[in-house]
């Protein structure tokens, strides 16, 4: 999966920072009891599924002058219902690039492919009655598989944990449509890898707060809303990343970033469309409003008898 924030930790340049706020990750949907956790943009959802993001997109600015257009894709395939593999990559174009720390040329337009990433995700627990699920994942980023200056330039491995909790089991009706999801990542570069002055080991993650109108309509009160509204899940996402290595290098080589995404996911039967405004919360996270989004295909619904179903039946080692 294309980790939007982790890319910021790979180097000091604005170019890398540009990539940090571009090409949102593609994410799966997940069901725990009465709850559907929608695909989110800044972090991944807690489920495993057969699906694809074709594409994810972003328009941001790392410095207020450079414009970064990003396109990304991801495909996830279940081996078991609770074990999935994924492949992802992305393409970025920097317009009026003001990054004078690279050799690409200031003020010009450049484009290139980012890291190729492979991941393995395991959903280890689902508690339907509490609308809760959690997964863990390991991802391998091939940081030399893309275009020089757009990929990390080094390989790394990321260990991730995810959770999702719907509030439907709380006996206070107004908050029952809400759900919270979260992700925590720890990224370790290959041995001996440094970026600029030091270690590029990193933490990243985020939280989302979702209000499911489909849940409201089908579990609490049917207001007879039109489909355009009835299938909508407004949400807020907070993403974060920071260095995990030498703290002395953080201000320059490993800037801590905070970003806020505000938007909504429209979920159909076979697909979903998400779009959010991206608000950088500090100077290291970009400048000005950005826009991110994705078109998401549910292969388990589109191709239920072929590539949309797990290779093997069962949910091994799931609580």
């Amino acid at each position, binding site marked *: 999966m294309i980790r939007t924030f982790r890319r910021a930790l790979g180097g000091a340049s604005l170019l890398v920072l540009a990539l940090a706020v571009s090409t949102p990750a593609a994410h799966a949907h997940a069901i725990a009891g009465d709850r559907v956790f929608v695909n989110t943009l800044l972090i991944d959802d807690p489920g495993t599924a057969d699906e694809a993001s074709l594409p994810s997109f972003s328009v941001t600015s790392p410095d207020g002058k450079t414009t970064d257009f990003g396109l990304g894709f991801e495909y996830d395939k279940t081996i078991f219902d609770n074990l999935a593999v994924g492949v992802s990559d992305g393409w970025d174009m920097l317009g009026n690039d003001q990054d004078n720390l690279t050799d690409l040329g200031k003020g010009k337009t450049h484009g290139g492919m980012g890291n190729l990433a492979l991941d393995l995700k395991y959903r280890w627990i689902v508690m339907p009655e509490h609308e809760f699920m959690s997964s863990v994942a390991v991802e391998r980023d091939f940081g030399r598989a893309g275009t020089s200056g757009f990929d990390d330039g080094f390989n790394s491995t990321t260990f991730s944990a995810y959770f999702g909790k719907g509030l439907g089991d709380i006996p206070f009706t107004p908050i029952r449509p809400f759900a919270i999801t979260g992700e925590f990542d720890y990224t370790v570069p290959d041995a001996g890898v440094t970026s600029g002055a030091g270690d590029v080991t990193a933490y990243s993650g985020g939280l989302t707060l979702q209000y499911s109108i489909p849940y409201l309509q089908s*579990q609490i009160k049917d207001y007879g809303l039109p489909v355009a509204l009835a299938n909508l899940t407004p949400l807020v996402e907070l993403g974060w990343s920071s260095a995990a290595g030498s703290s002395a290098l953080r201000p320059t080589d490993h800037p801590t970033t905070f970003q806020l995404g505000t938007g909504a996911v429209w979920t159909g039967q076979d697909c979903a469309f998400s779009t959010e405004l991206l608000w950088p919360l500090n100077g290291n996270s970009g400048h000005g409003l950005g826009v991110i989004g994705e078109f998401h295909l549910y292969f388990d619904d589109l*191709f239920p008898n072929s590539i949309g179903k797990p290779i093997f039946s069962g949910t091994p080692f799931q609580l």
Partner: protein
Amino acid sequence: MKRFLPLLAALAPVPAFAHAFLKSAEPGVGAVVATPPAQLLLTYTEGLEVPFCTVTVKGPDGTAVQTAKPQPVPGHEDEMSVPLHITAPGKYTVTWHALSDDGHKTQGSFSFTITP
């Protein structure tokens, strides 16, 4: 090309196959009605395998008031009905488990109220 046809067929989108989510209900989700309904009608976003679906409706005292298993609705593969025997006002809670045409399981619950 011919040898790829089976593969293409396997990959072809299958219409109307997806998770079955509740689209509407009669009595409605969260509705307040004066007359006890003789049946509960549930309409989903996709077709159902009704024999493998379950619905329970419990009254204010926790007693089940459905009198039979879910029944298919002729001509409406996305619907199922459940006969009810309601004799008292109060809040009734519906809990359903659905199996869609393609084997996807979903579940949910809601309530409706019968006024005195």
